[in-house]
């Protein structure tokens, strides 16, 4: 008698989704928490002087918040193995209106026998992708 694998997931399944409105305050908070005090993340004059369209969110802030819905989905942080991203488009944070980061997490590849999956994150601001090849290796819950 062979054990039957119960297929609870399929490639392409959406497993988590979240929306994060961020503001300049979010950037100051992340700077303090992470120790990254690069002035392009809080000073318009410095951002302009190096040719940027405005104050940018820390790439690591975007990377950090984008994985949170996946952590919540798998439950135990020990189920997160590897996590990688490419920073493909800067996130400009308007002083008044901020920016809104949207995260959708889907199953990109599945190994149900091993109980593991690659989760692909689509991370967008105003419909434009800001992280490339954003992938999380997880042990399935």
């Amino acid at each position, binding site marked *: 008698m062979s054990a039957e694998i119960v297929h609870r997931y399929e490639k392409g399944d959406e497993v988590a989704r979240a929306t*994060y409105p961020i503001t300049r305050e*979010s950037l100051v*908070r*992340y700077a*303090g*928490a*992470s*120790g*990254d005090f*690069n002035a392009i993340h809080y000073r318009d004059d410095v951002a302009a002087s*190096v040719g940027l369209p405005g104050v940018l969110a820390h*790439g*690591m*802030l975007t*990377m*950090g*918040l984008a*994985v*949170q819905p996946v*952590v*919540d989905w798998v439950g*135990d*942080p*020990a189920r*997160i*193995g*590897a*996590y*990688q*991203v*490419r*920073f493909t488009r800067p996130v400009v944070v308007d002083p008044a209106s901020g920016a809104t980061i949207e995260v959708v997490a889907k199953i990109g590849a599945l190994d149900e026998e091993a109980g593991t999956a690659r989760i692909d994150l689509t991370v967008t601001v105003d419909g434009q992708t800001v992280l490339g090849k954003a992938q999380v290796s997880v042990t399935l819950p």
Partner: protein
Amino acid sequence: MPVNPALTDRAFPATGSYLVGREKVREFARAVFSTNPLNFSVEAAQAAGYADVVAPPTFAIVVQELTLSQLLAEEDAGIELTHVVHGEQRFDHSRPIVAGDELTAQLRVTSIKTLGGNAMVVAETSITDAAGEHVATAVSTLVVRGDA
């Protein structure tokens, strides 16, 4: 000054120990918009089998940063912070970081590639705990702009 290709052969000293504080974990978790109880509540973390609050997956960047500072401080590196753009980031965790961990980090520059006028520098930081066990490897790809 272009990026020094000899950096890939350089032996960097391990950093001094970084003690992961409970309030630092909570502060970092708030900053990345976590609402996960394991990041904030000692009781919830202990109920899940951890000694103390658990750090979010990207917290390892705080420890890796200590080694990236070593790299930027090398006088002959040819890497100016104002010319550095973060290109890619990767973390491979053996286990989550937990408050109370005493971590040390060891840097290796694994690759330097020149592309157009820019250099792509891959900095790999291995993070171990007080027992010498591997906790995480953090890999940063830094794009060093060759203009200006």
